[in-house]
C-alpha cells in the first residue's frame, strides 16, 4: 500500500507542530522517519492515524485522497498504529484488547480467539490470547500491539519509537518480525531517533526538523554523521568521560542489602556496592529487576529488610528521606512527574522541595520565597533552563528543561552523592548533552554518582564501572571501556557475557 502525505500542517495555540510536511511511503518497504524529540514526528503520526485532524494538506492512500476524522477512518483505510506508550488496558485479556473496536470482524468469542492464534503463529509472536495484559512484559506487550494492528488487516503499520523500551536482543526479534511483515506485502513506517537502528532496518529515510520534513536519505549510502547533521543541523553529542578522577575514598557503601516485600518476594538480594569520590557507577538491567527498589532503599523511601548503608562513614540505613537528603544526597528520580517536580507549582516553589530545611530556601522556621526565587534564577542561568521566569509552572516546561532544572536543584547545597535514575529519559538531544555535561562535572568535583539507565550507550559512555542487576542480584561486573552494547544486553537478560 502506498501512502503519500502532501503539505500537511498542524497548529496548536502558540505552537506550529507541523508545516509543509511531504512524505511518500512505498508499498512493501520499511520507511524510517527520524528527527529529534519535538521535531513533530508524533503529531504527524497522530494526523496520519486520525487521532488529530490536520489544518492543511492532503493524505493520499493508493492514489485516493482520504480524510481521517477518527482512528476508525484510518483503520478502515488499512492504517494501523503502535503507540510509543502502549495503548493497552492492563486488566483486560490479550484477546479483549485485540478485538476491541473490531468486534464485527470475528465476534469476541471462539472465532476471534482462533484468528488471533493464527496470526500469532504466522509471524512467530508466541502470544496466548487469554492472558491478562498486566502479566506480560514489555516486548510481549509490543507484540500484542502489532497483533492488534494486523488483526484489523492493516497494510501500513506505524511504529512510534518501538525500540525505546527494548533491549538489543528484543530489538533483533522485532526487526525480524518487521521483515516478515514487509515480505508479506505490508508497509512499515518506523519512527526513531536511533540512527544505527534506522540504518539497519530502513529501506527509505525521511528526516524531520522543527515541524517539517527537511530531506530524505538512502540507507545504503547515508552515514550516521550525515543523518545526524540533517536531524539537528550539527554533530551528535556522545557520552564520553575525560581523565580518570576515581579516588579511594568511599562515599557510599551498601553492605548485604536485601529487600523482601509484603508478599515475601525478594526484590533485592544481598547487594554489596561501594561508590568512591569522583566515580560514576552504572547499573545496567532490564527495567523491573530491582533498580527502582535499590534507589528507594538508598533514599530511605523504603526500608531495607537486611543490611546496612553507609554514607561517608555514617550509617544511614534507618534515616528518613529528609535526613538522607540533608546528609548530602542528590536524587534525579526516574519519573520526574511522580517524584521530581510538582507540575502545578512554579519553579521557585519547586526549588524549595527537597530543600525545605536548608538555606536559601528557608530562614528559621519559615520559608524564604525571596531566597528560593534568587536561587531558582541561579539554576535557570547556570543550567540553561529555558523558561520565561521563575514564576512559570513546571508543567509549562518541556521535559528537557524540567530535567535540567531538577539536576540544578539536586546539585545545590553541595551534595556528596548523586543518584541519577534515567536522567535523560524523554529529553531531546540538546538537553541530553547538557545533562551528560553536568553529570561529568559532578564527577570532576568529587561526587560519587550512581547512574541507572536503560540507554546502554549512556551507561557505557559515562560509567567508570558497570554492575549488572538481574532479579535483584548483581550478576556481573563489566568494564565500560571494553564492553559493547550487545554484550551488555546479553548480560542484562541473563545470557553468558
Amino acid at each position, binding site marked *: 500500500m502506498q501512502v503519500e502525505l502532501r503539505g500537511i500542517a498542524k497548529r496548536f495555540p502558540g505552537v506550529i507542530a507541523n508545516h509543509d510536511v511531504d512524505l511518500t511511503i512505498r508499498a512493501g518497504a520499511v520507511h524510517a522517519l527520524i528527527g529529534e524529540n519535538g521535531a513533530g514526528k508524533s503529531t504527524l503520526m497522530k494526523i496520519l*492515524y486520525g487521532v488529530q485532524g490536520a489544518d492543511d494538506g492532503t493524505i493520499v492512500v493508493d492514489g485516493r485522497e482520504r480524510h481521517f476524522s477518527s482512528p476508525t477512518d484510518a483503520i478502515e483505510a488499512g492504517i494501523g498504529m503502535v503507540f510509543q506508550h502502549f495503548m493497552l*488496558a492492563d486488566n483486560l485479556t490479550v484477546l479483549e484488547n485485540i478485538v476491541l473496536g473490531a468486534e464485527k470482524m470475528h465476534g469476541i468469542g471462539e472465532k476471534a480467539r482462533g484468528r488471533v492464534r493464527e496470526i500469532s503463529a504466522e509471524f512467530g509472536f508466541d502470544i496466548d490470547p487469554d492472558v491478562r495484559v498486566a502479566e506480560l512484559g514489555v516486548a510481549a506487550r509490543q507484540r500484542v500491539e502489532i497483533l492488534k494492528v494486523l488483526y484489523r488487516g492493516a497494510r501500513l503499520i506505524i511504529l*512510534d519509537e518501538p525500540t525505546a523500551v527494548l533491549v538489543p536482543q528484543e530489538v533483533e526479534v522485532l526487526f525480524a518480525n518487521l521483515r516478515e511483515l514487509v515480505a508479506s506485502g505490508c508497509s512499515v513506517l518506523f519512527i526513531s531517533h536511533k540512527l544505527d537502528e534506522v540504518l539497519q532496518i530502513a529501506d527509505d529515510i525521511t528526516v524531520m526538523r522543527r515541524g517539517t520534513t527537511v530531506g530524505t536519505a538512502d540507507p545504503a549510502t547515508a552515514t550516521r554523521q550525515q543523518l545526524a547533521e540533517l536531524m539537528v543541523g550539527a554533530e551528535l553529542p556522545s557520552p564520553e568521560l575525560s581523565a580518570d578522577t576515581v579516588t579511594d575514598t568511599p562515599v557510599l557503601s551498601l553492605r548485604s542489602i536485601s529487600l523482601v516485600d509484603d508478599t515475601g518476594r525478594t526484590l533485592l538480594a544481598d547487594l554489596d556496592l561501594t561508590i568512591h569520590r569522583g566515580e560514576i557507577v552504572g547499573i545496567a538491567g532490564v527495567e523491573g529487576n530491582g533498580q527502582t527498589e535499590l534507589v528507594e532503599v538508598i533514599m530511605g523511601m523504603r526500608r531495607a529488610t537486611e543490611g546496612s548503608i553507609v554514607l561517608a562513614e555514617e550509617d544511614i540505613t534507618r534515616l528518613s528521606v529528609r535526613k538522607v537528603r540533608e546528609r548530602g544526597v542528590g536524587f534525579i528520580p526516574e519519573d520526574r512527574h511522580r517524584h521530581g517536580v510538582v507540575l502545578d507549582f512554579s519553579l521557585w516553589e519547586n526549588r524549595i522541595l527537597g530543600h525545605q530545611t536548608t538555606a536559601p530556601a528557608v530562614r528559621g522556621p519559615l520559608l524564604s520565597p525571596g531566597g528560593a526565587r534568587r536561587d531558582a534564577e541561579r539554576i535557570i542561568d547556570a543550567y540553561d533552563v529555558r523558561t520565561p521566569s521563575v514564576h512559570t509552572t513546571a508543567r509549562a516546561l518541556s521535559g528537557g528543561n524540567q530535567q535540567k532544572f531538577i539536576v540544578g536543584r539536586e546539585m545545590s547545597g553541595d551534595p556528596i552523592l548523586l543518584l541519577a535514575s534515567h536522567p535523560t529519559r524523554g529529553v531531546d538531544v540538546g538537553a541530553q548533552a547538557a545533562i551528560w555535561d553536568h553529570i561529568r562535572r559532578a564527577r570532576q568535583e568529587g561526587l560519587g554518582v550512581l547512574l541507572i539507565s536503560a540507554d546502554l550507550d549512556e551507561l557505557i559512555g559515562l560509567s567508570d564501572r558497570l554492575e549488572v542487576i538481574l532479579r535483584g542480584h548483581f550478576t556481573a561486573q563489566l568494564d565500560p571501556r571494553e564492553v559493547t552494547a550487545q554484550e551488555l544486553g546479553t548480560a542484562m537478560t541473563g545470557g553468558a557475557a
Partner: protein
Amino acid sequence: MTRTIASPAAVRQVRYLTWIVVLAVLITVSLVRVLTDQNRMTTPGTLRLALIAACPILLAGLGGLWAERAGIVNIGLEGQMLLGTWGAAFFAYHFGAWAGVAGAIAMGALGGLLHGLATVTFGVDHIISGVAINIIGLGAVGYLAQTFFDGYEGGGPRNLSGYAVPREVTIPGISSAARWVSEQRWFLISDVAGAIAGVTTRLSLLTILALLLVAFTAWVLWRTPFGLRLRSCGESPQAAETLGVNVYLYKYIAVVISGGFAGLGGAYLAMVASSSFTTGQTNGRGYIGLASMIFGNWNPTGVLASSLMFGYADGISLLSNNGPLVHAILLLLAVLLLGYAALKFRRGERMTAYVVAGIAVALFAWYLAVDSVPSDFTGMTPYILTLFVLAVAAQRLRMPAADGKPYRKGQAG
C-alpha cells in the same frame, strides 16, 4: 499489587473455594441460631424482609457498576433514586403500575444524563457533580411533590399513596412446603427452607426483575461487544479511542443506564418496600448501593451478595423488638470474623489477621457483657457493617483502572 491469574484451573479452584466458604457461613449461621435460640434469624418473614431491603441497594449497586465500569464514579445514585421514587408515584398514580416503573427509570436516567453532561462533556469532577445531583434530587423531589401531590386524593405536600403497584406472586406448593420445614427448626435444613420460603412467598414482580437484571448486567458487560467497549472505557479510554471506540458516547450510555437502574431502585422503594411515596425516602440507600458495588468488587454477583448482606442488616432493623436478635448477630459476626482472621493468618497476612481477630474478640466481649442491643444501634447496623467490611476487604478490591479519571478526546498517544 496482587495479581489474579485467570487460568481455567485457577478459576475452577476459586469457584470451589467460594462454595466451601458459602457452606461454612451457612453452617455458622445455623449453629449460632440454634445456640442462641434466636429462631427469627432465618425465618421466612425475616428473610423476605431482608430481600425486600436488599433490592433497592442491589439496583443502586448495579447502577453504580454500570457507570464505574465505563470510568464514571456515580455518587449521584442517591439523588437519581430520589427522582425515581417521585417518578414511580407520579406515573403510577396516573397511568398504572408499570407506567410508574417506566417513569421512575426515566427520571433516574434523566439524573444520569445530567451527571454525564457534567462529567463527560464539561469535565467536572465526578464527586462534585454527583454530590450536586444528590442535592438537586432532594430539592427537585420536594418541589415536585409539593407542586403535584398536594391536591391529589391520598396525597399531601410530602407524600402520596393509593397508586397501583406491580403484582405479587406466591409460588404454590414450594412456598407452603418450605414454610412448614422452616418451622420445624431443624439444624441447617430449616434455615435453607426459610430462605426458599422467603423468596417464594408474596414475591413482587419487581423483585424478580431486579434479580434478572443481575444476570442481564453480567451478560451484557462480559459477553457482548457492546459490553467490551463499555468496559474498555473504564480501563483505558485512550486505548479504546485509538481503536475507534466513541468513548464519550459509551460513557453517556453507561451513566444514563446507571441512572435508570438507580431510578428503578427508587421505584422499588416507593412500590414494594412501602406502598406509598414520601420525600427523602431513600435514606442513604444510594450510598449503601455504592458501598455494595465496591465490596462486590465491581462484579454483578459480588454486588448481589453484598447487597443481600446489607439488606439483611437493613431488614432486621425493621423488625419489632429486635434487640435480642441483633445481640445474637453480634456472636455470629464475632465467629465469622474469627474465621476470616484464621484464613488471613494462614495466607501470611499477619497484620490484617490480628486486626480482624481483635475486632472479633471485642464483639464477643460485647456479646457477653449485654443481653440486648439498644434499638438505636440496630438502625446503625448496615452502616457499621459497611465500614467493617470495607476496612477488612479494601485491599483485595480492584476497581477499573481509569475509574473517575478525567478523559479528553484527542490525547491518545
